[in-house]
């Protein structure tokens, strides 16, 4: 019997939940993709049409059906592992997010797990860039590592700050600790930095330099067919998983009037997800080397102060 950190048997991994997780994540990813198409139309001043909104679904089907291109002497093994890890790590991240009052994989240190699978993106994106044996892909991979060096430390401190509130690294306990006052009120700086980091490790919008057009698509440049589908789904999936995790960490979990907990949780997740997706159509691209200075000189001290304030209040 696997005990996963000496938890009682009733808290064991739910097998049905584990099988449904990828489906749930893919569903949220599709919502994000459709929303992005809608925001694109709005940003361009066009009317949003239904045909346009089903565009991502059609594109997904097309990617499933077309034969994938390949490059000269790719490192196919590392390439595929890298691409698959983008999606798989997003599923693993969602596994520790409490759905209702328990997560699919309950863990007393779920917040650290979330951080650990996020760190896998460092390897995943670089491998995706490297494997194609293409200069633009490799440029994208290196850009993601530069970006990671900027967002990772503030992000870790944000997770710790959220944990201080509940005196626990278990997202379920952290969510339950927010009776009366949501953490977002107590630690607004940490919440903002969390959202910024989420957009950054999903290499989305202002932080999409690893996949930007000036490098012909960077890490995504040589991906085609199902390989591309997996990485793009994983990218939207990471936006969704971070939105889902922000609910227990900052937005009081499933608490809310009238409606059941699950409904509130889904509602809050969708609101945060839409905000994250909208960031792409709201802010211009930030180069990694510029963001590095912002992260280290502004975000890091700000989050440290935030952690101090929260620690003093909680104690």
């Amino acid at each position, binding site marked *: 019997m696997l005990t*996963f950190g000496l938890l009682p048997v009733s808290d064991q991994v739910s097998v049905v939940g584990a099988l449904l997780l990828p489906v749930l994540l893919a569903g949220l990813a599709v919502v994000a993709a459709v929303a992005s198409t809608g925001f694109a139309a709005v940003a361009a001043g066009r009317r949003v049409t239904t045909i346009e909104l089903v565009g991502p679904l059609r594109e997904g089907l097309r990617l499933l059906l077309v034969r994938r291109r390949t490059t000269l002497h790719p490192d196919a093994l590392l390439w595929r592992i890298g691409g698959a890890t983008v999606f798989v790590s997003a599923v693993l991240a969602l596994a520790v997010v409490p759905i209702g009052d328990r997560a699919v994989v309950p863990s007393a240190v779920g917040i650290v797990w979330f951080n650990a699978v996020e*760190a896998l993106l460092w390897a995943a994106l670089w491998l995706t860039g490297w494997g194609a044996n293409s200069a633009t892909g490799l440029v994208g991979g290196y850009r993601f590592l530069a970006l990671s060096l900027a967002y990772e430390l503030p992000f870790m401190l944000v997770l710790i700050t959220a944990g201080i509130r509940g005196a626990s690294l278990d997202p379920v306990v952290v969510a339950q600790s927010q009776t009366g006052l949501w953490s977002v009120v107590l630690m607004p700086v940490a919440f903002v930095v969390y959202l910024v980091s989420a957009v950054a490790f999903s290499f989305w919008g202002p932080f999409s330099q690893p996949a930007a057009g000036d490098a012909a698509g960077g890490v995504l440049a040589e991906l085609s067919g199902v390989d591309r589908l997996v990485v793009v789904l994983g990218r939207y999936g990471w936006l969704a998983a971070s939105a889902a995790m922000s609910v227990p960490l900052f937005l009081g979990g499933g608490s809310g009037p009238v409606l059941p907990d699950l409904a509130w949780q889904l509602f809050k997740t969708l609101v945060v997800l839409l905000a994250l997706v909208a960031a792409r159509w709201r802010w211009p691209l*930030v180069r990694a080397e510029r963001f590095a*200075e912002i992260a280290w000189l502004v975000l890091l001290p700000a989050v440290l102060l935030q952690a101090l304030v929260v620690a003093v209040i909680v104690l």
Partner: protein
Amino acid sequence: MESVIGGVLGAVAVLAGATVFVVNSMARATYSLLVSFLAVAAMLVLLGSTYVGFLTVVMMTVEMAIMGVFMLMYMMNPAGLMPMSMRHNTRGALVLSVGTFLVLSVGVFAVPWPGRQGKPARDVTYDLGTALMGRHMLTMIVIGTALLATMVSGVMLTSARGRYDRYGDELDRRPPTDPVRGGVGR
């Protein structure tokens, strides 16, 4: 069940570690080493030390991702795109590594391990910390901070560009000349 999984993870860790010296690409060598570390992290989780296990995943993944960059940068061939081997001093290294492996393996079986007394600890991480550090916890925390400060100052001292390069001899050049402008407009 747990011992079977543990055994498989152990085999993965050893074999992935050996693969580092079999593959002919720096990227594959770096990431097979990462697979080895991840297997060790999974073993820690299996032992009930989830916090240390997950932390190992964070540390090792980030470390290997950065190390891969340096491995490619300092290789004998440009951009690491040509095949190459990680093997040097083949015979000596083989003797040393096989010898170390044998000594450690014999040690596992030769040491008279104590039987379990009492119940498993509720907080494994806390108990592990106290067992390792004992009364010296505070000392080690202070030394840890001092080590970090040493690292930061070391990097600062070896940096090729100091404030005189940036702000000029009189330190009055605004904005400073930087090869790449930073994001906060200094």
